[in-house]
């Protein structure tokens, strides 16, 4: 069904708005919003496993998430507004891959793995490799995201800092930083470029003790919310805020 012009519908808070804009016109919608297999948050070995159909609100309220991945709880609580968080799901947000969505920066910085189920079985892709361009991902047409698996990062410090668009709360710039117990940094951005990305150059500069330049060499988005120059400036401001938060 998904391969024949169909689309999976979960919370609908990305897909329905795009359908209203006629950017998407699926022949068939398959409502996966109430599948119990896509719900639930649990610890499996050294990973926190979040079902793709878990809402932002449920992640923000989860004690397991607060304990092991506090950035995910505080980050989720900054998505949209309470009603949006009651419906929108992490899997839907990731599959939609809006360049300004909050989850991508967080899951890239946290080195999460995205689990996808298709007709030929299960496939896993690292979050860092998942986002391939503007609204484009490694997800195949006939696949469904089922889980997001995140290393527990015990002893790490982590933060997600964002500059929000005031009505939608989408990130004009969102910066996630995870500092492991041994001091290693992972830096990722949403909102800055056509696809969310891990900022390896900034990581290298920081690990060699230099001041970092955010999003060096990246093509920077420019729109009526923020020009290219302003966005680049904000990326640096929010990187510094994130670094201060994990210092």
């Amino acid at each position, binding site marked *: 069904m998904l391969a024949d012009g169909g689309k999976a*519908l979960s919370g*609908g*808070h990305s897909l*329905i*708005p795009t*359908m*209203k804009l006629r950017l998407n016109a699926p022949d068939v*919608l398959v*409502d996966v*919003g109430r599948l119990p297999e896509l719900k639930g948050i649990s610890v499996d070995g050294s990973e926190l496993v979040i079902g793709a159909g878990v809402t932002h609100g449920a992640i923000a309220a989860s004690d397991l998430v607060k304990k092991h991945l506090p950035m995910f709880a505080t980050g989720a609580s900054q998505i*949209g*507004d*309470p*009603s*949006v968080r*009651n*419906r929108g799901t992490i899997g839907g947000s990731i599959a939609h891959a809006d360049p300004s969505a909050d989850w991508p920066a967080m899951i890239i910085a946290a080195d999460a793995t995205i689990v996808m189920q298709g007709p030929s079985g299960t496939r896993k892709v690292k979050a860092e490799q998942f986002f391939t361009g503007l609204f484009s991902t490694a997800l195949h047409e006939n696949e469904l995201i089922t889980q997001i698996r995140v290393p527990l990062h015990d002893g790490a410090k982590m933060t997600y800092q964002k500059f929000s668009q005031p*009505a*939608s*709360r989408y990130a004009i710039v969102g910066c996630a930083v995870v500092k492991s117990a041994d001091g290693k940094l992972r830096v990722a951005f949403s909102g800055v470029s056509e696809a969310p990305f891990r900022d390896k150059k900034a990581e290298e500069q920081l690990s060699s003790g230099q001041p970092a330049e955010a999003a060096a060499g990246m093509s920077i988005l420019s729109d009526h919310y923020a020009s290219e120059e302003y966005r680049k400036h904000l990326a640096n401001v929010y990187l510094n805020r994130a670094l201060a938060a994990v210092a």
Partner: protein
Amino acid sequence: MQVNLTVNGKVRQADLEDRTLLVDFLRDNLRLTGTHVGCDTSSCGSCTVHVDGVAVKSCTLLAAQADGCTVTTIEGLAQFNANGTIGQLHPLQEGFKECHGLQCGFCTPGMIMTAADLLSRQRNPSEHDIREALEGNICRCTGYHNIVKAIQWAADHTPAPLLADHHVWTNEPTTEPAAV
């Protein structure tokens, strides 16, 4: 497509076009026009209703997604007399009246439904809690000061059982509700 749901305590069945949004079903099919469409982009919150006790933006939900669910709209909050006149307003409606929490009234149904969700979870919200809860509800008349006061008033005047289950008063009248 066939949709079955319970709206304000009544079982409703309808054969709808697949793409029907919940808000359009409520307004156009059931004539429950208290739920408003402001932005149609899930930003303004004037379409907020409860689905299975949780506040959602009904402009960004297909009616089919609410199949089998329990929906409460602004019409489901007050107690109505048998003749369709209002018997007793919900404490939030009283609060908005007492504290002048509205001017044009367009955003009010959404504000009240969002606040009802908050009060069902939190007995004594702080001003900060209320303002955070209202993040997805936009008012273009009064600013938010009196809206926040109205919700605080309701929190102070709401009987405890109502907070435990704010659906106990969902007995919307069979006729169109009388104008407030």
